[in-house]
């Protein structure tokens, strides 16, 4: 990757600090971003990355520190002011307008207007279509309601909105966490084009393999402090990892081969209109089965069908060789199935509640005494065990879950499912937003859980992750199983070919 010759600083930050009550989220951080430069911000979960960009974007005022944008002091009084100053952001926890169309979502706050000051719907539509064509997103989506889209489609729309804003600085907070390879590559192209046009890009990611494509330079945050600032040419993964965690990290997971064991979950001819067609799939005891595909391939729907949320119109499912016809998640849970949803904001967390009860939510029936009274000591013990085990950064178990960083929220949800010791564990984008070190932990744990006798089905758009943990991978395309790969056939190349429908 070439460093740009144009070194005019577009954004510079110095001495930036921010605390939330007793938590210091960011302390004395400084760096410069040159015009056209692509800067990756790295750090463990809770290191302060999102806090940093929220201050740049005017969401929180900094407690201390200075920022300049394009040479002038940058002290945004509101997100709107930052936006007007030329800062465009895709936030980690996506915020959008569920009951508006995708088109309206794209232009909220910057609707094209005609001379009479009226909202110019025709021009808006034209610009939206052009934008989506440019980004290779289906134009039909523009008229759909935002909440009718899959999570990944929503994410694409939000990215489209951010890149369409004519900005000096584009900030992307973990934009790829649920995108698959093809979409991610498309995104890199856009980023590159923008940086060539002189836009400074701040990019947050936990996917190391992306770094060489998106970054000219890295900064690393650790516990809210700047732990490193180096050009891409000098970075190697181990060094960055060490800066992030302050200790050497083993990024590889170890696993033994799966033993042939009985089939626990089996679907045959499973069909859900508009999403899943004629899917045959098996998962054995002790085995990790991966599920890969493009956005909209139907993986999430397949998982939801097994978990009893969606009703199939054809085909059968069997669990332990008995017919599995769940009328809802409760039936699925009774059959020993656990499911970690991909959309933690709307399907995962209970936002008003504390970390403790978020973790014990599924386990609750086993924590009850007479009259449905919760045995509180036991519940607390369970929660703290998992908080320690997954190193969830919560000041107390009673801390509200929404006060945790995105990655730690995800860990809490992971704990919720692991705590139930299920027979079948279905994980939809399980390491979404989780930092590298912890990710390895979780992947390791996932393999262990399988080896201890659970049947694990992992939906992930993170192909390296999927290849690292899976014994077998199904590739889905347009609702169908396009390939089943295992053993020596299970290579990155083979998966991608199947995904695209390219003949080998």
């Amino acid at each position: 990757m070439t460093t740009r010759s144009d070194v005019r600083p577009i954004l510079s930050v110095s001495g930036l600090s921010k605390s939330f009550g007793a938590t210091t989220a960011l302390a004395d951080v400084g760096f410069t971003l040159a015009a056209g430069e692509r800067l990756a911000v790295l750090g463990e979960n809770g290191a302060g990355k999102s806090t940093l960009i929220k201050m740049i974007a005017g969401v929180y005022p900094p407690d201390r520190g200075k920022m300049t944008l394009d040479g002038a002091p940058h002290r945004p009084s509101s997100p709107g002011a930052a936006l007007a100053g030329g800062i465009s952001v895709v936030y980690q926890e996506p915020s959008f307008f569920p009951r508006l169309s995708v088109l309206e979502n794209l232009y909220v706050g910057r609707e094209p207007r005609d001379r009479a000051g009226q909202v110019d719907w025709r021009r808006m539509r034209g610009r939206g279509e052009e934008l989506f064509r440019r980004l290779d997103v289906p134009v039909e989506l523009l008229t759909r309601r935002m909440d009718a889209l899959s999570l990944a489609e929503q994410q694409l729309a939000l990215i489209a909105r951010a890149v369409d804003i004519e900005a000096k600085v584009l900030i992307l907070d973990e934009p790829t966490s649920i995108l698959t390879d093809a979409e991610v590559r498309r995104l890199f192209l856009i980023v590159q084009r923008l940086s060539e046009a002189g836009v400074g890009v701040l990019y947050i990611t936990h996917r190391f393999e992306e770094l060489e494509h998106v970054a000219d330079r890295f900064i690393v945050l650790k516990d809210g402090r700047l732990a490193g600032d180096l050009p891409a040419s000098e970075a190697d993964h181990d060094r960055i990892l060490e800066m992030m965690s302050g200790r050497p990290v083993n990024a590889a997971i170890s696993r033994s081969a799966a033993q042939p064991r009985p089939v626990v979950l089996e679907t045959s001819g499973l069909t859900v209109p508009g999403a899943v067609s004629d899917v045959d799939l098996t998962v054995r005891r002790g085995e990790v089965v991966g599920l890969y595909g493009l956005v909209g391939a139907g993986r999430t729907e397949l998982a939801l069908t097994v978990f009893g949320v969606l009703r199939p119109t054809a085909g059968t499912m069997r669990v332990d060789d008995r017919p599995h016809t769940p009328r809802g998640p409760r039936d699925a849970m009774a059959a020993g199935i656990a499911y970690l949803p991909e959309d933690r904001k709307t399907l995962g967390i209970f936002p008003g509640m504390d970390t403790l009860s978020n973790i014990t939510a599924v386990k609750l029936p086993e924590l009850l005494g007479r009259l449905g009274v919760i045995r509180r000591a036991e519940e607390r013990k369970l929660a703290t065990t998992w908080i320690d085990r997954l190193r969830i950064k919560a000041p107390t178990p009673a801390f509200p879950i929404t006060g945790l960083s995105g990655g730690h929220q995800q860990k809490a949800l992971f704990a919720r499912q692991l705590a139930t010791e299920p027979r079948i564990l279905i994980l939809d984008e399980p390491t979404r937003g989780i930092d590298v070190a912890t990710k390895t932990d979780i992947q390791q744990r996932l393999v262990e859980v399988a080896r201890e006798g659970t049947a694990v089905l992992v939906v992930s758009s993170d192909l390296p992750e999927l290849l690292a943990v899976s014994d077998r991978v199904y590739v889905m395309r347009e609702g169908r199983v396009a390939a089943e790969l295992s053993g020596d056939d299970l290579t990155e190349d083979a998966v991608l070919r199947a995904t695209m429908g390219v003949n080998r």
Partner: protein
Amino acid sequence: MTTGALPRRPLRDRVSDRRVFLAVLVVALGALMSLLSPYFLEVGNLLAMTQYGAVIGLLALGVSLVILGGRGGIDLSGGSALSLSGIVMGLLAQNLGLSPWLAALVTVAFGALLGSVNGFMIARLGLPPLIVTLSTLFLYGALAQVLTGGGQLGGFNREGFAALGQSAILGVPAQVLLVLAPAFAVAIWAQNRTAFGRRLHQIGTSDRAATLVGIDVSKLRFRLYCLSGALAALGAVVTNAWLLTARPSAGLGMELQAITIAVLGGIHIFGGRGHLSGVLLALVVVVVLSWGLQLAQVGNSVQTGILGLVLVGAALLNNLLTRRAPG
């Protein structure tokens, strides 16, 4: 990395708790009222005053549960359900000559039935709560009128039934000691200690997440509406024992008072947040305020406005003290 050492709840959270605020308000109002009227602080008076909170308290409890259950939950039909249940009890006791005690039991079941109509339309069919309960507000209120042809029913002053609304035990009105207090005690206990309470908050904060952790969301929500209906009917039973008359307009306008008490008590209108103990305190605030003003001979219509000022002022002060988003 976690746990143990830190206090369970940050101090600021405690101060910002609506309940602390309401408790202070009760004391302040009590002091103010005793200045306004020399009769206010008489012990007999203090206890007797609680009787006015019994009926509206039951309704506020019901609507609080429904609001806590989330998804825009609200029960506007509480007042009308009270009227209709009261009339049904009157028909049973007066026209059919049933024992008032038995009639009371049947009435509470009937109230649950009225609630189940709301519950069915809201939880099973997924219709918007506001519109469903608005319809039943009209429907139940009108049915009460139809059943009596506009008149009133009696027949409650038998078999010692009137004691439920007329007598006092150790100075505490029976309807408070035997109905309101136990209802709130059970509800507060259930909210804080039982799976029911936990699940109530879970469906209230995220419907869809609750489904995925295995809660039968529509069943639970259905039950909340039944409960609200049953509590309204209990309110009707108390009213009948107290006034010895069932009027078809007995509950008129009570739904808004009940909602006022619920939100004053800190029940968050979008569900999942708030404490029933706060609702109890809000009830005390409202009762103290209106009884005190009554003793100070402040006209009834002016009391309404002062209550409104207290509602807004309390919310404002609470926000000011805690600097937190919408109360």
